[in-house]
């Protein structure tokens, strides 16, 4: 803990702000606990002695509820460590790239197209503007990876239209 945060602990001043993100985290943990209990309640208890499969999820759910309360207390007291400002655009670009990759794999577009899409969006997220050049680089690199894995290591990677040409 930083010295600042420690000294802040000493004064329970009402001026401290509630950390909204912390409240959301606490709520998410409580929600996860609810899912665990709901899922466990559907398991039939068949074990004669000891613990059945439904016992551990309930124990973990109880732990999650306690931790949700702990996180909530930290959030209400504003005790969370300071966060730096963030730029949402690159994060969105990379997540978009991952979504594109999943979609291309899902629709049978193959390894080369899928990973090339991720390469180009990630590179753009880190500030590159030369999309065409990056696309060319990505296609070459991923084709080489595909060939190395498919032909040398005989590890099967999903094939699409481009892979079938090779």
């Amino acid at each position, binding site marked *: 803990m930083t010295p600042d945060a420690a000294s802040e602990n000493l004064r329970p001043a009402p001026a401290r702000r509630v950390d909204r993100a912390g409240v959301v985290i606490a709520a998410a943990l409580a929600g*996860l606990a609810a899912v*665990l209990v709901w899922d466990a309640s559907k398991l039939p208890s068949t074990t004669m002695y000891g613990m059945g499969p439904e016992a551990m999820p309930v124990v973990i759910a109880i732990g999650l509820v306690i931790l949700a309360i702990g996180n909530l207390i930290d959030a209400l007291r504003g005790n969370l460590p300071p966060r730096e400002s963030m730029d949402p655009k690159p994060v969105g670009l990379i997540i978009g790239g991952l979504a594109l990759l*999943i979609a291309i794999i899902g629709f049978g577009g193959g390894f080369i197209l899928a990973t090339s899409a991720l390469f180009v969006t990630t590179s753009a997220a880190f500030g590159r503007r030369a999309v065409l050049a990056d696309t060319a680089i990505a296609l070459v690199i991923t084709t080489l990876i595909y060939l190395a894995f498919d032909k040398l290591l005989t590890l099967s990677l999903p094939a699409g239209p481009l892979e079938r040409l090779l």
Partner: protein
Amino acid sequence: MMDTFAALAHGMAVAMQPMNLLYALIGVFLGTAVGVLPGIGPALTVALLLPVTYKLDPGGSLIMFAGIYYGGMYGGSTTAILINTPGESASMATALEGNKMAKAGRGGPALATSAIGSFVAGTIATIGLAFLAPWLVDFAVRFGPEDYFALMCVAFVTVSATFGDSPVRGLTSLFIGLTLGLVGIDKLTGQARLAFGIPELLDGVEVTTLAVGLFAVGEALYVASRRHHAEEKLEPVRGSLWMTKEDWRRSWKPWLRGTLFGFPIGALPAGGAEIPTFLSYSTERRLTKHPEEFGKGAIEGVAGPEAANNASAAGTLVPLLTLGLPTSATAAMMLAGFQQYGLNPGPLLFAERPDLVWGLIASLFIANGMLLVLNLPLVGLWVRLLAIPQPWLYAGILVFATMGTIAAKPSVVELSMLAAFGVMGFLMRRFDFPIAPVVIGLILGPIAESQLRRALAISLGDPMVLLQSPMSATLLGIALIALLAPFVLKGLGRFKANED
């Protein structure tokens, strides 16, 4: 004692087979190359390279693993020294002085003292491992399931709560991992838990998917989100690579002291390399004859922590190999490597597959030696890897990261999990939740549960069995103390501060 020598000699015979030497060499090379990339620590190095070993036999694969493991450690310290971005908290102390040395044009000696120190510490610690392991195995064969369960409780608590910044956030990470560990078919009854009718989830969450998502994708998202803050600067290696006589004189004692901190603390089921590295750093700072250099690039401040870091890495292999207990994210990935062949480290593995275990230990020595020979001459190559422009570097890391998953399980569900874990890793970094406890919770949670259920089945459901075994009662007591200590100490601190 003689048994150990015989076993080790046998292991050496296994590891020295030409094919196995080649595997070790490939492992060392790949481990260093991936470990040197900024933001990639040893755990992620092992996770990323796990798919490469799929097609090998268990022996060769574990030997390659040993090389990847040590290579990743060496690579990480190179990055810490040359660009001040420690891939993991254990390299933080190295970055502190090492980067200052590099800035002052003494990057060569800094890299050399860290490489030679790692070699010295790794060798001593591996000898320690070889002698401690059989002794611990003798002890561990008497463990009942309740004792194992209690031991895992100790590991859970110490890894998540005792040594972190915030016990609440550490335990939260652990419980997220434990929750993920529940997913899939329950091994004892065949019931599906948390699968929500999705067939891919019946097999459970893959450790590699989780680790690669949290570490690689999460790190890429995090670095991208704060790219506008500061550019990393690569320090060129100027001047001589070699250490002067003065450098040697100032380095050898810190190496040995660092090893003495690192190995025992790493071997405890508490794990973590942060504590020994910082203990070593503060000790060297106190003992040095050149206190004015500390903070400006003192060679002792690189030599000690690097040795401590490597010794503790070898130390974490003690509980991993003898008890099947991973105490760091890297050790958890090693356990995943064993599990992909259906092997469970522990006393039984020593009895059933001595060739594997001792081959692995012997190849640790070999990997260490290879690294010493390879690393200093090849430092120019590693530096060139560091100079890859950031956009291509992270784009490449993500392609490589997703490739592992695509090769193992090319399904939309698995890839979506990878992306979701990536977002989770990003949020955890942003809100300062530790990541290693999630991985350890996932891999150790199901084992702990099955041990507990086995213990309760034997005792016909009587929970007192956990307290009747003196071993288990003691361990549970330790776990309770370790859980409460940070809260009590924090309370005491506040109380004292109020008195002032």
